[in-house]
C-alpha cells in the first residue's frame, strides 16, 4: 500500500515523536546531500534513538512503499547517504550511547557516536579506536562501518572491518538481529564482515561492538621533505622493504603543502616537491630505532630535510596540517572534486606522473594527499563549479584517473565507498558474474530492495545469466 506524504509523516511521527521528524521543504533540501557533489531527494527525515524505533520506521516505510536510507553525519563523499529517489532518511546521530567493557578492550557503541568522541571517551582507560578518517571530528561510527573507513593509521592496524567484532542491525523485514560476537569466531557465516562496507544496503546498523587498542606508550612522528616525488615514493617502498610497517605513512605534494601551510602555519617546507609524514608507535625502547631507519631511508633517497616532532604539540600540529587538506583547498577555489582510488603502492610514482600529465593537459589544478603506505590516492581538483568548462574538464579528468588506476592494478575506492557516484564504474573492475554474485548476496539480505537502493551495484547487476539478459524476477 502506498500512502500519501502526510500519512507517511504522521506514521513516522507516531514512532519517533514530533521532535525527531523533519519534513519541511528546507530540511528535506538540507538533508538531500552529503559532503560530495550529488544531490538526492528526501521524503522525510527521522532521527530515532533506539533500534526498536529504527525497526518500526523500516516496517512503516515498507508499508508505504518507500525505501530507507541511513545517514550519520553526512561527511561521505560518494553519495552513499543521498537518496536517489524519495526515501525515508534515517539519521542515526541521536543513537550515541557508549557501553565500554575496558577489561575486554571492547565497547558497544551507537552508530551516531562520533569517531573521535569514542577515542576521547575511552582515553582515560588507555584505549583508543584505531580507524581515524580525516573527518574524524565529525564522522560517525555508523558511517565508518558503512564505508569501511580507514584513515592514516589504518596502514598498520587495518580499516574499520578489522576493528568491528559484532553488528546489530535492522533487516529489510524490520527485525533486529546481531551478527558477530565479543568472543572469537562465532559459528556460521561471517555476516559481520559483509555488513562492514555495505553502505547501508544490507541493513540499518543500530549498534556496533568495536575492538579497542591499548594506547602506544611511545610515538615518534617525522616530516621528510623531498626535491622529487620519486624520492618520497622510493622512501615508502624502502621502509616497507626494510621490514617496518609504520603506524602511518602519508604523502602530500607541493601544491597541497603550500595550500596547507598558508592555512595551518606548521612551518612546512614549501619548496619541497613532496613531503612524507611518518609515524611509528610502540614500546619506548623500539620506536627510536624505527624512526632512525625511516630517516636514514629518506636521506638515502634525497630528502633535504628530516624533522622529528619534538613533542606532542608539534606532532599534533603536523597531523593537523595533514588533516586540514580539505579546508585549505577552500582558499584556492570554491569547489573541489576528489577521487579515492587505490593502487599497489609500488606504482605510486608512475600513476602520480600520469595524474600531473592529465591536470596539465586539461589546464586544471591538482593537489595530492596520499595514504602512501597503502597506495590510496586522493587527487583533488580545485575548480569553480560555476564554470561549465571547468566542470567538464574535471569530470573528464576524473574518468581518466579511474582508468589509469585500474590499469595499474588498482580499485575504485580505498575508503570512501562506491555510493551513487561510482556504481556506474563497477563493471570496470568486476565481471558480470562477479557483480551478479554480489547482487545475489544483497538479495539474500534485502529481497525487495528497500535498503538504500541504487547504491554500490550498477543497475541490472542481478538480471544476468552468463551473458544472457533475463527478465527481472526470473529464477536463475
Amino acid at each position, binding site marked *: 500500500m502506498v500512502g500519501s506524504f502526510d500519512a507517511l509523516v504522521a506514521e513516522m511521527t507516531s514512532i519517533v515523536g514530533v521532535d525527531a521528524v523533519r519534513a519541511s521543504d528546507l530540511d528535506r533540501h538540507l538533508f538531500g546531500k552529503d559532503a560530495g557533489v550529488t544531490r538526492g531527494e528526501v521524503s522525510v527525515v527521522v532521527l530515532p534513538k533506539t533500534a526498536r524505533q529504527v525497526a518500526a520506521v523500516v516496517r512503516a516505510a515498507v508499508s508505504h512503499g518507500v525505501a530507507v536510507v541511513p545517514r550519520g553525519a553526512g561527511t561521505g563523499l560518494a553519495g552513499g547517504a543521498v537518496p536517489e529517489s524519495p526515501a525515508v532518511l534515517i539519521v542515526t546521530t541521536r543513537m550515541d550511547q557508549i557501553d565500554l567493557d575496558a577489561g575486554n578492550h571492547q565497547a558497544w557503541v551507537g552508530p551516531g557516536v562520533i569517531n573521535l568522541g569514542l577515542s576521547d571517551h575511552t582515553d582515560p582507560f588507555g584505549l583508543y579506536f584505531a580507524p581515524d578518517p580525516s573527518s574524524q571530528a565529525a564522522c560517525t561510527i555508523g558511517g565508518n562501518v558503512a564505508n569501511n573507513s580507514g584513515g592514516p593509521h589504518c596502514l598498520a592496524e587495518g*580499516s574499520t572491518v578489522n576493528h568491528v567484532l559484532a553488528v546489530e542491525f535492522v533487516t529489510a523485514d524490520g527485525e533486529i*538481529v546481531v551478527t558477530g560476537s565479543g*568472543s572469537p569466531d562465532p*559459528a556460521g557465516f561471517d555476516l559481520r564482515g*559483509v555488513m562492514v562496507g555495505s553502505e547501508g544496503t544490507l541493513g540499518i546498523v543500530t549498534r556496533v561492538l568495536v575492538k579497542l587498542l591499548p594506547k602506544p606508550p611511545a610515538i615518534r612522528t617525522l616530516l621528510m621533505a623531498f626535491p622529487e616525488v620519486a624520492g618520497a615514493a622510493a622512501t615508502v617502498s624502502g621502509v616497507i*622493504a626494510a621490514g617496518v610497517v609504520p603506524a602511518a605513512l602519508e604523502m602530500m605534494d607541493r601544491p597541497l603543502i603550500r595550500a596547507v601551510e598558508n592555512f595551518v602555519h606548521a612551518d612546512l617546507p614549501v619548496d619541497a616537491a613532496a613531503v612524507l609524514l611518518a609515524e611509528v608507535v610502540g614500546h619506548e625502547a*623500539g620506536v627510536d630505532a624505527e624512526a632512525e631507519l625511516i630517516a636514514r631511508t629518506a636521506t638515502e633517497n634525497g630528502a633535504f630535510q628530516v624533522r622529528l616532532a619534538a613533542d606532542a604539540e608539534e606532532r599534533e600540529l603536523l597531523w593537523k596540517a595533514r588533516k586540514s587538506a580539505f579546508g585549505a583547498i577552500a582558499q584556492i577555489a570554491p569547489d573541489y572534486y576528489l577521487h579515492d582510488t587505490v593502487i599497489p603502492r609500488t606504482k605510486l610514482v608512475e600513476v602520480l606522473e600520469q595524474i600531473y600529465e592529465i591536470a596539465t593537459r586539461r589546464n586544471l589544478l591538482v593537489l595530492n594527499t596520499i595514504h602512501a603506505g597503502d597506495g590510496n590516492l586522493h587527487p583533488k581538483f580545485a575548480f569553480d563549479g560555476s564554470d561549465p568548462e571547468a566542470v567538464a574538464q574535471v569530470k573528464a579528468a576524473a574518468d581518466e584517473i579511474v582508468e589509469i588506476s585500474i590499469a595499474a592494478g588498482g580499485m575504485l575506492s580505498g575508503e570512501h565507498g562506491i555510493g551513487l557516484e*561510482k556504481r556506474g564504474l563497477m563493471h570496470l573492475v568486476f565481471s558480470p558474474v562477479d557483480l551478479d554474485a554480489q547482487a545475489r548476496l544483497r538479495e539474500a539480505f534485502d529481497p525487495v530492495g528497500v535498503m538504500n537502493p541504487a547504491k554500490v551495484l550498477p543497475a541490472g547487476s542481478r538480471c544476468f545469466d552468463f551473458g544472457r539478459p533475463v527478465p527481472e524476477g526470473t529464477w536463475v
Partner: protein
Amino acid sequence: MTGLRSTLGKMFGGSKTEIEGAPPAELVVAPDSADQIAQLLDFASEHRLTVLPWGAGTHQGFGGRIEPDVIVSSRKLEGIVEWNPDDLTVVVGSGTTLGGLDEVIGSRRQSAVLPESTPGATVGGVVAAGVSGWRRLRYGPTRDRLLQVEFVTGDGRTVTGGARVVKNVTGYDLPRLLAGSFGSLGIITSVCLKLWPEPETAATVTTDDPERAGAMTYRPQAVLETRDGVSVFLAGTAAEVEAQAAALAGEATAGFVWPEPPVANCAVRIRVSPVDVSALIAQLGVGEFVAAHGVGEIMASVEPDEMEPLREWASARGGTLVVEHAPAEVYETIDPWGVAPSTLGLQRRVKAAFDPLGVLVPGRLPGGI
C-alpha cells in the same frame, strides 16, 4: 551413479582412489583449474551430487563427518601465482601448503601470519575453516589477511571478490564471507593475502601472571598458557624485545617456541571473551590445552562427557564450544557447533544465493546448512 562416475572420470581424470583420512566417496577428483571446478560443480548441481572440497584434511573434523558423492582435492591448485614483496601481497593457489608458502616468502623475511603449528595444512583449508594462528593477538585473525578470493559457486560460476590491493571498499567483502564458510558457499581456488614483515628479533619469555604480562609489555605477539605455564611471545627491535623480556623477569628463549596443539582423541575449541580465559582454564579437566590470553580461544583435549558442561559454562558467558575432531560416535551425541546463530534464516538465504541446489558440503554448518 556408475554412469556419472565414468562421465566425471573422463572429464577430470578422477578415480576411486581414496585420500588418507577422507570419508568414503563415489569419486575423488583433482581438478587443475577454476574452469574445471566450474564444469564439475555445474555437473554436480545438474545431477544433485554432493561435493566436499578437500585440502590436507587438517580441519575436516569441524561440523562433523560428511559423506559426499564427490571429493574435490585442491592438490593440483598448488603454487604461488604472484608474489609482490614490495607491496607485501601474495596470490596463491588454494592447495598450497602453509609450509610451502612460508618457504617462498620467508626468503624475504615475510609472513602471512597463518597458523604456525600446521605447516601441512593448505591455504584454502585454513581460509575455509577460518582458523587463525597464535599471533592473532597482534595481527588479528586470518580473515584480516584476505584481500581477494577466487572461488567457484555451487552452481558453477567462477567469482572473484576483493582485489589485490591492501585497502579496498569496492563492493561487498566476499573474501570475509568466504573465510570460515567451510566450502559451503564455494570452492576456493586462489586467494590474495596481505603479508607482514618478520620482526627483527623474537623471544619467548615465561611468566606466572598472564594478566600482568599484558600490562608489562606493549602488544605482544601472543600470551599462551598450557599445563607447563604461561609464555609471552615478544617481537620487534632487539632493544624493545630485551627491555620487555627484562621487565617480565621470566626465563627467556630466543625465537618463538610455539606450543604443540593438544593431540587428542576428542579436541574442542572453546571461544569466550578475553577476560574469561583464566576462569575457563579452571573449569578444564586433566587434558592438555593451549589458551590464548587476550584473544579468548582455548584449544583443549577433553573427555566426551566434559563437553556439555564446558559448553554450558561458555554459553552462559556469551561464548561457544565447537568440536574440532572426535570419534564418529561422539558426533552422534553432541551438536558440533552448539546453539545455531540467531541469524539462521538469513544464513540460509546467503547459502542459497551461492549454492542454490545445496550440493556443497550439506550439513556441515550450524543449523544443518
